[in-house]
């Protein structure tokens, strides 16, 4: 499953501080959407509103509307826990659970929903998710070993496996490769392209080549000055944003003239 996400004049706050202002956009299913922009413009903040992780921070809140296949994610009777089970997230720094084995890491999200699963079922899910994350061959002989014993790139793919094991509708990745070497980065990029066959993929990146290589749509955010809110400046097909942007700011940013 893969869902269309619609943001309607979304304002995102930390207490009284307006971090992101008035974002309206449609994130297409079965595509990769990249968020780019200078540091502090609110990319992480915005992506975390998509699975309601933003509100874990005390005082953080959202105004405006966020629809997922037409359903209001911030509706009064919507349980954030349920939203997060449908929207997987991969963080900037790999964060497998250090106290769990590789296998338990993969199954950790799945177990939340299905406390009782047969051994065969568990093995099947583990294999499927690890194959999906291009990690199976590297770890199939040490599934019972701790996840923290893997390399950084492998840990990040383990986190992706953990996220896709629950078969979410959307996968969010906040700079998933910024802590990784070029080879691990390439592996994750390939993986992202495979994932979009099934999921809606949103990725935050500082790496312009990465955005232009893998994404279908690109959203450029900018901030007018510190203390001011970040805004969506331009949102279009990736080719267009990188070759022939409408806004001067976008042009400056993608050509490396600032940011």
């Amino acid at each position, binding site marked *: 499953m893969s869902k269309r996400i619609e943001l309607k004049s979304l304002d995102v706050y930390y207490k009284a501080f307006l971090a992101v202002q008035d974002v309206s956009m449609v994130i297409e299913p079965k595509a990769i959407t990249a968020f780019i922009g200078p540091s502090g413009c609110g990319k992480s903040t915005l992506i975390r509103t998509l699975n309601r*992780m933003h509100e874990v921070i005390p005082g953080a809140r959202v105004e405006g509307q966020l629809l997922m296949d037409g359903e209001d994610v911030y509706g009064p009777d919507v349980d954030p826990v349920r939203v997060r089970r449908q929207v997987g997230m991969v963080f900037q720094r790999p964060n497998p659970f250090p106290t769990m084995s590789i296998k338990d890491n993969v199954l950790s999200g799945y177990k*939340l929903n299905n406390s009782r699963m047969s051994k065969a079922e568990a093995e099947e899910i583990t294999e499927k998710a690890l194959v999906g994350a291009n990690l199976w061959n590297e770890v199939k002989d040490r599934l019972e070993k701790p996840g923290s014993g893997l390399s950084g790139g492998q840990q990040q793919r383990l986190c992706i496996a953990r996220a896709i094991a629950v078969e979410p509708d959307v996968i969010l990745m906040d700079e998933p490769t910024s802590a990784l070497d070029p080879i691990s980065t390439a592996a994750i990029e390939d993986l992202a392209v495979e994932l979009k066959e099934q999921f809606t993929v949103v990725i935050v990146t500082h790496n312009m080549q990465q955005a232009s290589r893998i994404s279908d749509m690109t959203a450029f955010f900018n901030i007018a000055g510190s203390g001011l809110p970040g805004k969506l400046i331009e949102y279009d097909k990736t080719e267009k944003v990188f070759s022939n942007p409408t806004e001067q700011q976008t042009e400056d940013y993608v050509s490396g003239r600032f940011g």
Partner: protein
Amino acid sequence: MTDTKPKAVRRLGDIVFANLAFFAGVSILATLATVAAFLFAQSVPAFTGPPIDAASEGFFSYVLPFVFGTVYASVIGLAIATPLAVGIALYISHFANRRFAQILGYAVDLLAAIPSVVYGLWGILVLAPFLSPTFNWLNANLGWIPMFAGQVSATGRTMLTVGIVLAIMVLPIMAALIREIFLQTPRLHEEAALALGATRWEMIKMAVLPFGRPGIISAAMLGLGRALGETMAVAMVLSPSAVISFAVLTSTNSNTIAANIALQFPEAGGNYTNLLIATGLVLFAITMVVNMIARWVISRRAEFSGAN
């Protein structure tokens, strides 16, 4: 550069600090060794000298009830204190709002500062009479469990009362330690759990408790250490007899080693003193064994500790 092996630069600060740390470490070991040597040396006459009235049937049958009492009282105390301490720590670290958590934190720290004599008095004067009806109820309804069987003490001054007093005594330090550990749970792992759709409680089970496990064990051991050695509170609450009995509601309770030493020492002389010191040596050994077990438990899963 002709020098193949350049001399490492040694900074004054590093040298001073290394030596300080070294002496601190050595002085702990030296203190421990001195205490152990003292205990050993003073214990020997208890075995070699003429038999003493108090231990007419030999040292081991003398000390055994005390060993039992010590371990039993401490285990009861710990069994009560550990879940409570984990609960309090979790509440402070993850549930209470910041203001209230702070107040609660201070209250817990204050409890730790109360001298044990006061706990003993409180145990006799307040807790024992207060618990008496509960003991009767336990005996009437759960009397089929050996622990709760027997003739219920009329005063409420029983093994269970001691266990509860000990639990309350070790609770603050345990709760404070465990709270610190829970607060150190990496935000990254908590968010990983939440992002998978864990509820707060599930997040605690996935990220906080496993991460804090070695710390909980260490805190429990610290609590156990204090409970094993606790003297005044036990000596005041219990009216001891030399028995080994699992019943926790009756008035025949075995004493603990530390309390026995405190009670007997003023009247002891000659060989009797040596006998008491020998029991102290046994307490020392128990504490060491307990700590070794704890180390082993922690190291067994070091691979999964997240410290790598």
